[in-house]
């Protein structure tokens, strides 16, 4: 099969570029530690009362570490608001009670699908004080556009504002 010389160069350039992209992605995972949502466990969505999600909320694990359990349902997050001091690291365990929802924290690398039957997990460090919305980004019925939560990161800048 005849391949034109210029086209051969083009194909090599394209392959090298895509190879560099792949290497950059591998670096983002193995060197910079970006984590993707991965299976952490299953749950019966009709029986959350008998699971770790029976009482959703924030737990202080000490040393600036927190664990949050959040339940998404049509059309709110439980709990709706979380307060943590600046510099803390929160391990979010999230699931859905009914249909699919989304979990997106503004200005932070947290982006999860919440599916009934699956526990989704993400670890987020809050370095900046401020109010960040948790947005449900997966269509979940007519109230979808009003489904959100808030993470208040309290620090030197907002300490005076909070009650």
């Amino acid at each position: 099969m005849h391949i034109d010389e210029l086209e051969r160069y083009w194909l090599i350039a394209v392959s090298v570029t895509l190879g560099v992209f792949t290497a950059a992605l591998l670096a983002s995972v193995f060197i910079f530690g970006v984590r993707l949502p991965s299976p952490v466990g299953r749950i019966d969505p009709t029986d959350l009362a008998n699971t770790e999600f029976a009482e959703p909320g924030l737990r202080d694990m000490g040393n600036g570490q927190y664990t949050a359990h959040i339940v998404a349902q049509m059309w709110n997050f439980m709990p709706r608001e979380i307060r943590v001091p600046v510099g803390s690291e929160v391990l979010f365990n999230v699931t859905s009670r009914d249909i699919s929802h989304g979990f997106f924290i503004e200005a932070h690398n947290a982006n999860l699908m919440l599916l009934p039957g699956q526990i989704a997990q993400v670890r987020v460090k809050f370095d900046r004080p401020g109010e960040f919305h948790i947005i449900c980004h997966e269509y979940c019925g007519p109230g979808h556009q009003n489904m959100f939560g808030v993470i208040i990161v309290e620090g030197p800048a907002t300490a005076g504002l909070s009650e």
Partner: protein
Amino acid sequence: MQAVQLPQRSSAPMVFPRVGMLTSERWLIGVHIISALFALSFGILMGPFQTFRRAPAFVHAFPEWQIPVFSYYYQALTMHGVMNALFFTTFFIVGFSYFVTQRSLQRPINQTMGWIAFGLMFLGLGLILYAISTNQANVLYTFYSPMLAHATFYIGLVLLAVGSWVAGAAIFMTYLAWKKEHPGERVPLAVFAIIVNQIMWQICTIGVAIEILTLLLPASLGFLFVTDVQVGRALFWFFGHPLVYFWLIPAYVSWYTMLPTQAGGKLFSDSLGRVAFIMLLIFSLPVGVHHLYADPGVSAVSKGIHTVLTFVVAIPSFMTAFNVGASLEYAARKRGARGPLGWLFRQKWSDPVVVAQLGGMILFIMGGFSGLINASLTLNIALHNTAWIPAHFHMTLGGAVTLTYIGITYWLLPMLRGRALFSNKMALAQVWTWVVGMLIFGHGMGTAGIAGAPRRTDVGMSPYLNETATFWLNSSAIGGFVLLISSILLYANVVGTLAFSTKPYDYEPPIAHRGDPNSPLWLERWGLWIGITLFLILIAWAPVFVESLNFVDGFNAPFFNPARPSPITP
């Protein structure tokens, strides 16, 4: 050697008029193109109104503004997605594939099968229009479980799929009969690509057929009450990514086999075109998990494998960029273009058929690069389900594919009617408003997405939108307005051509009757390519299904009507 001599079948090729159509051709292809434009008219008009609904400035300026369907965001969005992405495309692809196959191979498509296929698909269209317009199917075009729509929605989808299978079978039969009569000959590149497209389609629709027939349809009829949402999503995206190549390949057929002639030149390389199509067949199926990067039930290893394969499936598109680009350069230099880049500007800017395809390519550059960003699994965390995603696929599906289909319509519709296009100027204005509108819309949506605006959300009144996202969503409504003008120009020209055009039709469609004899014949060893495809599917998808199926508890997620926060119980 056969002992009994069978009566020799006539192998005289069917003769098609050079300009104009046979009656059988006009009817069978005509109903598909008209049905496609009918479906598109519902979908295309919803689009601009959704950009208005998503613009906080607009919603605050006109809080009382309510038009049935148009203003009910999720109903309109379901209509927009289902009509544009599933029905317009499928009707158009089937009609166009029949046209190209018949004309290239000079053999008719089996008319009975063609009409049965059309009947099934058209009935499906009717049922879906009923389900969506009566507000019983607000499940968007991805119809994820455990949200449930009315049964007519799923039956409509099944009829569309089965109809397209029958159409595919009719195309295969025509090809095989041609092959038998022309041993050792290369099939024309256009038909080669259409065969690739149909093989891919028959394989990928199995995923969505399983999802609908075993989960969604039984549930909507009241026989099933639990499901597994992760499995449903995996089945959908087994189908969902090849679906985008099902749309793209017919556009590539036009770019590879028609545009070079329309632009005044010839195709640079027939063989590498074939290689690109074979790569699209092999690599469009084992990549669907790139839609599931944020899903909790799929392992990071599977996500990584699908990422690499997604980069591989970008290669045939880069090859297409070179091949089609070189063909356009050749055509322009023949007309006297000078300098290294002079050919870019020396195109046939007065021919709407050419300009529509070039406009599609301009948008496809944005679509291709944003697609590579989406495919990058860790970058995707910043973008999954934000407005960036629809910005991306309005450059690919809404840009490259739709504009190319519109370009094809600008010669095919006049050919069906036997009259020239109503207005070339209107068509040119339509194409450029489409390109500009899509760029404004896409830039606004993409930037708002990076700022955190979610996709598929009626965000005009949302309490959580930040200022950056609000500003750019408002700007994308301007794009929506330009696109509304473009859509009106498109339909004015369609109606004008069908009803008011008086000029005679004198355009000969560029159809090749044979393939390049220098192209390697092994590229037509379909058994080999299908085998490799199935092998890659097994490697890439088996782990996904094994890890997402819950072998311990079975299905345990109840179904829901999206309007009510309580499960559907027996």
